[in-house]
């Protein structure tokens, strides 16, 4: 064998070894899986896990605005539990999340059922229905600042001819009305998310099932209850979970519209954490407020995953 042919043979063997290793890697599910996941896990670790761990430390320390602080145990959490403002915030957050979610679900489902029908310009309507969701939240909320403004609001011009009373406190000056206003904006913004996702779920339901139900004498309500709802449930639970998590940790709408007022009546966990940490210079307390959401959200995630696994099983 000549030198050249020996080199060529060596290179061929090297290539074969590389191909074999690559095949081994590609064929080995677990190793391949971790390899493919690695970049994402690295990003999550650096930009989410690390700040989260640091946030937990902050909540257990006395850090103000700078440095690491000293360990103080659960003192920040204990202080929050006796704070009237924080207790008010817990109530506000549950009211805000619960009410918004119910309305988004009902109205989103209705819109999805409508968009599932065939009618002229259906695609344009579907695209248009997405607009509230895709416009940046802070930007769309600024528009509502003007709509609900004490002096510049156009609503009195609309209400008075219709003999609808205009509140003397303005739309954001009364705690109940202010909460209603932020819920309204959240619902307006969130309906498209429900509608489009549920529409996708509706489109996977075979038409034959509806035809069979019709033949069996089911009216539209019965078809919805016995065909649509059960088959839509997996999609519905996912949508609900994501929506509740987002709404529970909402910040932009309240911060732009009311800054948590009047009198902390629209204060949510996120806005209170912002006020305490970044305006009050108490990072430790702000972190504790943020982390208070975790148990509730974790329960939701566990419930949803349990439901999904049960369905799969």
């Amino acid at each position, binding site marked *: 064998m000549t030198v050249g042919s020996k080199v060529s043979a060596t290179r061929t063997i090297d290539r074969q070894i590389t191909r074999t290793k690559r095949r081994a890697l590609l064929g080995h599910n677990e190793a391949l899986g971790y390899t493919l996941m690695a970049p994402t896990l690295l990003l999550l670790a650096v930009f989410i896990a690390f700040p989260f761990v640091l946030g937990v430390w902050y909540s257990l320390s006395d850090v103000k605005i700078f440095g690491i602080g*000293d360990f103080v145990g659960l003192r920040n959490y204990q202080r929050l539990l006796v704070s009237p403002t924080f207790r008010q915030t817990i109530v506000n957050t549950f009211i805000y999340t619960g009410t918004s979610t119910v309305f988004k679900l009902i109205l989103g489902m209705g819109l999805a059922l409508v968009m599932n029908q065939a009618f002229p310009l259906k695609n344009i309507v579907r695209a248009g229905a997405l607009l509230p969701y895709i416009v940046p939240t802070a930007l769309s909320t600024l528009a509502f600042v003007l709509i609900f403004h004490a002096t510049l609001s156009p609503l009195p011009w609309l209400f008075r001819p219709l003999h609808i009373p205009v509140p003397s406190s303005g739309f954001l000056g009364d705690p109940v009305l202010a909460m209603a206003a932020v819920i309204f904006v959240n619902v307006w913004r969130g309906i498209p998310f429900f509608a489009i996702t549920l529409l996708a779920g509706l489109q996977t339901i075979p038409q034959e099932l509806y035809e069979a139900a019709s033949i069996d004498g089911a009216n539209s309500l019965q078809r919805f209850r016995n065909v649509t709802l059960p088959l839509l449930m997996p999609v519905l639970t996912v949508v609900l979970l994501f929506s509740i998590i987002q709404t529970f940790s909402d910040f932009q709408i309240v911060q732009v519209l009311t800054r948590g007022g*009047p009198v902390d009546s629209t204060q949510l966990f996120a806005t209170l*954490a912002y006020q305490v940490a970044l305006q009050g210079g108490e990072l430790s307390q702000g972190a504790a407020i943020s982390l208070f959401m975790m148990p509730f959200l974790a329960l939701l995630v566990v419930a949803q995953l349990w439901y999904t696994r049960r369905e799969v099983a």
Partner: protein
Amino acid sequence: MKCEDKEMPVKKSRREFLKGALFTGGGLLLASCAPAATPSPTSAPASKPAEAAKPAEAPKPTAPAVISGAEISLLQWNHFIPTADPFFKQQAAEYSKQTGVKVTIETINGNDLLPKFTAAIQGQSGPTIFQLMSQQAHTLAEGLYDVTDLANEFEPWFGKWYPQLKADSLVGDKFRSIPWNMGSQAFVYRKSWFEKVGATVPDNWDQLRDAAKKVKAMGKPVGQAFGQSFADATQFCYPLIWSFGGKELEADNKTIAINSKETIEAVKYAVALWKDGLDERGLSWDDSSNNTAFLAEENAATLNGPSIYIVASGMINAKDKKPWSDDMDHFFTPKGPAGGPYIWGGTYSHAIPTYVKGKELDAAKDYLRYIYNPKQYDAWFAQNISYNGPGERMESHPIWNTLPKPLQIFKTHGRISRALGYAGQPSAKVAEVQAKFVIPNMFARAIRGQAAEDSVKQAETEMKQIFS
């Protein structure tokens, strides 16, 4: 060794792997749902933090400082007087031409300044110079340089620092910021409407209540904000308490003194004033709402700085073709049982964060020398139109001679303005009380129907938590 003797590693199925990854990813995603209200240091990766709670000393200046080529930035609030910021930026451009230092001036809403500064200090990256408001120097002290040398250098250029400006900048015995200027307040009112209803210009709070009742009957109530915004509610509520003899702290700076007969009386007065003569939308107002309402002719009077009058002087009344401001004037914040008038000034000061080093630090100090120099400062001051300087010398600035009589009221406010935390001193905890709107919400709750005693007690509880 037989294969069955060796424990074989359990291979995971693809499904089990995906489940594990999903749980891991789901957990991390859940962690991300808690909003970044506490600033995420990975957005601007933190260098190794200095020891907590230990003020940094400014590095000794190297001489000669070669600053050409440095790039510095200054973050400040959006000035309510339209001419002030453009002029200030123009001066910065002149400085850049002279020195070769690139200066960027950024202006944002005042409410958003402190969160940006906090995030910048946490992330050790951000503006080179902070323009602080009120007692923010106390909140951010551990992240700011000691600038006592500069403050002492500049003070003679302005006479002595006004007491409130000095108190807001002095943390312990060190200046963490350098006093810059102050926005004062007085009630602006419509003269013709007051005359129409027979209301006299009030000297005390009872007279104000009487006047408010009369103008509200005409459909033009007095406007006052009680919303959660940085200035308007504070500038009304604190002086009201002081004029009734109430105080937030005892002189020892630690004992909470808010729950007193005097404070309760002040709260009761505010509730009565609300019912009799205030605009009922005030609970939702931010710092610009009273400007809008007054200029929309919805209110007969409101507590504000000079900005309403200044804007109105540029607007012509369609009926008589005269400047709208001809029908406006100001009166002092009324006196109470414990005297007055009391004013809380909206103070501004400049600070340098400790992450600024080297050439940028030298350039920042040089730039501050430039803007505080009377040649530059006096020219910019003329654009401020009745905002106060940091010291008494600015009371004799020629601009005051050109201003109309209604604006002369603001000239000497710097002498009588008082810092928050009375009868103690400003501090980070006093600043936290302000940031959490403890005092304005105390009034707002009573206005909403809570008993004054209960509302004051709740404010006391909140203050005790902050100070504990």
